[in-house]
Each structure stands twice: as C-alpha cells, then as structure tokens.
C-alpha cells in the first residue's frame, strides 16, 4: 500500500506497517515538549492528583518562553513552578530563557526525521519541517502523554501543496502561508496533514521550512510536514534518514502553484485569512514588529536586514529575536547591528508581544504590521489595535516608509 510521509511516521509510532486515513490508532510518543504557560503550571497539580510520574523524563523537553521576562508576581510564580518542576521530575532537557520553544527544540538537536512528537502549543507543527509528525495538544491531553507515553490519533489524510520553480527575491515562507490561508481559509487544512513539496520548497533553508509548517496551524491542519533531505541533514549536522511520501500515495487534495508568480502578501485585521497582495494596500502604520517563532528566527532577521541596511525606520520598530543563539549569530555576523542602526528596539528572546501574555502590548488604536502568525482582535493588546501580518521583508520595508510597502524595490 502506498503511504504518505504522514502515514509512514504515524504507522511507525503505532507499531504498524501501514495505516489508513480515518482509522483511529494509538501512537507511542517519541518526544513531548512543553513551555511555561501550558506545561508545569498545569501538569504538576494534575500529576499530583493522579499520584503519577512522567513516563520517561528523557523524552520530555521543557522550554520557558511565554512569561519571559518575568514582570509581575503571576509571571514570576509561573516560571518558578517550571524551574522547580523540572528538578522534581528529573527532566534534564530544560532550556530556560533560551528562546521560543519551536525554534529552540530543533536548534538543540531534539528533532529527527520520522519522530512522532507532541507539543503543548498550537504552533508545534513547526517540527514537521524535519519530517517529524508533530502537533499541538492542550495541557490535559499532555498530561495523558506524560502518564502513559501514548496518544490517540485519527490517521490523517494528506493535502499536498506543491510549488514549482523558485520564489522571487523578497518573497518568503510567510508570504506562502498567508497566501494559502487566504485562499483556503483557516479551516482549509481540515485538521489533516499538509505536506509541502516541489522544487521551490526544496530550495528553502530549514528555518523557512519551519515557518511553513508552523503556520499550518493557521491553515487548520493538524500538522505540516516536509520530507527530509540534504537541507535537513546540514541543519542538524548529522546524517538523517530520508522520510518521504511514496510517489503515488493517495492524497485528499493536491494543489500546485508556480512559485515565481507569488507576490508578497499581507493579511489585514483581524484574520490571517484576510490576505491580499501587498500592492493592494494603502495603509499607514505606527509600529512594525519583528518577533515570534514564525517571524524572528535568524533567517527572518537576515531578511529584515536586507531591507534595513543603511536605512532608518520611520515607524516604531521592535525586534524580539526568536532565540538567544540566533540573536548571538546575528550579532556576530552584523545582522543585528543593521537592525539596531535602523532604530530597532530590542526585546527579550521570548514570545513577546505575539500572544499578548507579557508586559509589552499594543495600545489603543495602534496600527501595527507584524511578522507574527495571528492578528485576531485584541490578541496583541487593545481590541481597537489593528494588526497586519506580513513577511520580515515587508515589515522592514513598511517600518522604513511608515506605510505598508512592497519590499521588492528595497532589497540590497
């Protein structure tokens, strides 16, 4: 039986040779990742109520990112619970204030092709960029994993999204996802597996692939996946197994596009599906935000720098690099200095303004353009704030002019 990449990984985790879309299987979990908000603060009391222990502490990774930097009693308490719990539970894989979980997890070598993994965050499909089957679950479902090491799954169909050719300069993975979400809607993924393939995808560096899989959450897929290849190997700096779909495995849908025809995209308030080409917009902005797992990795910072080099931001520009290591690399190679010279204000390596959890929030009536994943009403602060979503190129170009701007004429 011909199998898709998603089916192959699920079958392995279910201890089967093949699985059929629509059947319900129980999978053994290879890796469970949690962060400070949905993790220890919720897991600890439930584990205590059950009198249960973590099934395998070596398979658990805990990363703090949501409530950093701590700024009040509540956030301090949430972080303290995380730090105490990893010690009590014997979890060595603990990354405290090192960056956003979806970026830190592969950066520290925890993902491998063929893995079956869950994360206590909706953007966990990011791991699918490494040909893993990784998806987000809530805290109680994560408790089930922590106690049993298993989880049920409705074996997904696969929706293949194929891009031929190559993306134009100034067009990035974020544009691809905003385009797809605009075209198919926030439930276009039907909670199935979305596989990105084709020559244009193969050419993308790992962190761009991560952005594709990450925003499969906004496309409504359970996860996004990309077959492993030399790019995966080079990023992980080790030999990897090749996990890919069989050539003629049955698909729920197969959408093909020409990559070079895609222009930069912008999603208007208050939905990532509210997308149009950048040239359609005539809009002033107050603030440009380059942050989040989906928009402030090293690759994203480099895109912003390609626009900002030698220029000054007219709008307020805030940058929150997605991981400490990416920030250090950006500093070493001069990318960070370009952003600072343009007038960027630097925030901590955490979720920052994206989810509105921290102290930095959008004020009343602020018009912002952001590299984040969601522009839901009130998410980043005041309900009256207007948030436009775009790529790091477009956000940087818009910061310079103070208006939503096509970055293609500003690349250096």
């Amino acid at each position, binding site marked *: 039986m011909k199998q898709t990449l998603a089916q192959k990984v699920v079958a392995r985790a279910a201890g089967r040779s093949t699985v059929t879309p629509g059947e319900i299987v129980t999978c053994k979990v290879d890796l469970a990742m949690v962060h400070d908000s949905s993790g220890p603060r919720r897991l600890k009391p439930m584990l205590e109520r059950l009198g249960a222990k973590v099934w395998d502490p070596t398979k658990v990774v805990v990363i703090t990112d949501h409530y950093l930097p701590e700024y009040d009693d509540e956030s301090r308490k949430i972080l303290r619970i995380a730090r105490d719990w990893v010690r009590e539970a014997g979890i060595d894989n603990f990354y405290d204030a090192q960056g956003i979980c979806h970026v830190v997890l592969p950066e520290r070598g925890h993902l491998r092709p063929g893995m079956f993994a869950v994360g206590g965050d909706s953007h966990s499909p990011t791991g699918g960029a490494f040909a893993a089957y990784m998806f987000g679950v809530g805290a109680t*479902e994560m408790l089930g994993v922590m106690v049993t090491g298993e989880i049920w799954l409705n074996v997904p169909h696969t929706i293949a999204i194929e891009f031929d050719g190559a993306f134009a300069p100034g067009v990035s993975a974020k544009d691809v996802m905003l385009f797809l979400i605009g075209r198919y809607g926030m439930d276009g993924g039907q909670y199935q597996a979305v596989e990105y393939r084709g020559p244009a995808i193969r050419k993308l560096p790992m962190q761009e692939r991560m952005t594709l899989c990450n925003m499969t959450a906004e496309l409504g897929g359970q996860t996004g996946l990309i077959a492993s290849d030399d790019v995966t190997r080079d990023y992980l700096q080790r030999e990897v197994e090749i996990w890919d779909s069989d050539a003629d495995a049955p698909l729920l849908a197969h959408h093909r596009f020409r990559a070079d025809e895609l222009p930069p995209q912008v999603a208007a308030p208050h939905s990532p599906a509210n997308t149009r080409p950048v040239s359609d917009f005539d809009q002033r902005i107050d603030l440009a935000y380059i942050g989040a797992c989906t928009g402030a990795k090293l690759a994203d910072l480099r895109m912003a720098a390609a626009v900002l080099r030698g220029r000054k931001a007219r709008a307020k520009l805030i940058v929150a690099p997605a991981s400490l290591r990416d920030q250090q690399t950006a500093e070493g190679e001069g990318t960070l200095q370009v952003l600072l010279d343009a007038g960027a204000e630097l925030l901590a390596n955490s979720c920052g303004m994206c989810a509105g959890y921290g102290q930095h929030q959008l004020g009343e009536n602020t018009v912002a353009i952001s590299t984040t994943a969601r522009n839901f009403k009130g998410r980043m602060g005041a*309900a009256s704030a207007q948030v436009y979503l775009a790529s790091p190129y477009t956000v940087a170009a818009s910061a310079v002019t103070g208006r939503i701007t096509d970055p293609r004429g500003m690349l250096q």
Partner: protein
Amino acid sequence: MKAWVFGDNVDTDVIAPGRYMKYAIDEIARHCMEALEPAFAASVRKGDVVVAGRNFGAGSSREQAPEALKHLGVAALIAESYAGLFYRNAINLGLPALVCAQAKRIRAGDHIAVDLDAGRIDNRTSGETLAAEPVPAFLLQIVRDGGLLAHLEKRLRGERASA
C-alpha cells in the same frame, strides 16, 4: 437551556484572552468572549449552550478556552465544525462538543435540549430537531467521566486495584 449564538472562526483569543492567561480560571472566564459579546460571561447561565458556525476555537492550544466555557456553566457546544485542537481540548475537559451541519438554524435565545447519546438536538423554541454527528464511543466515555483527568484517575485506580 438558552442558546448563545456566534459566527464562524471564533478564535481562542476571544474565548480566553491571552492577557488573562496568567490567572486562574475564574478570572479568565470573567473575560470569556468579551471582544465579541461583552455581556456573555456575566449573563450566561448554567446549562446554556454555545452555538457557532465553522471552525469554532481556531488558534491556540490553550485548554482554558473550553475550560472557561465549562466554568461559566455552558453545558454543550454545537457548531458546524471545530478547530481540531480545540475539539480535543473540549472533550478532554469534559465539555460535550457536537458537530451539527445545521447549527445556523438555531437562533440566539432559543431553548435547546441536547441528547448526547442519540446525537440529537431539540430546539424547543422552533420545534425543530437537528441531527448531530455521532461522537466516537471512547471520546463519549471521556466526556462522561468528566474529562481526561478524571478518566485517567479512574483507569489508574482500576490498575492499582488489580495489581
């Protein structure tokens, strides 16, 4: 049971706003749906149902979204479809979530009775009966036990008793 009716793509930031996520559920619940319906949290009564269109619960993995609805006394959700992650969370928190293609036939304020076993929704205001998709038996059992935590507690107690 009174129906509260919402549209398509109601997101988790609306159901459980991020800026209150650091607090306990009673505080989060106080702000449930406030961006769409400021009176909801204060006015919803125990046993009421929330009705919505497509993709209810889009967005975050935060289970405080279904938890807040349950905390406010919402007895069941009826929607054309749910975001998959939200649906799993609703079941895991013991909040019945029915999928009903005709959910939009229900009007705000209608009196609704839900029969989970039969997958039947009776609209006592309009006199209509709507069919809901059947919920797999193992998920129904989790809901009946009061959610996955209570379900696991029961299972572990059983395993320990037989050990």
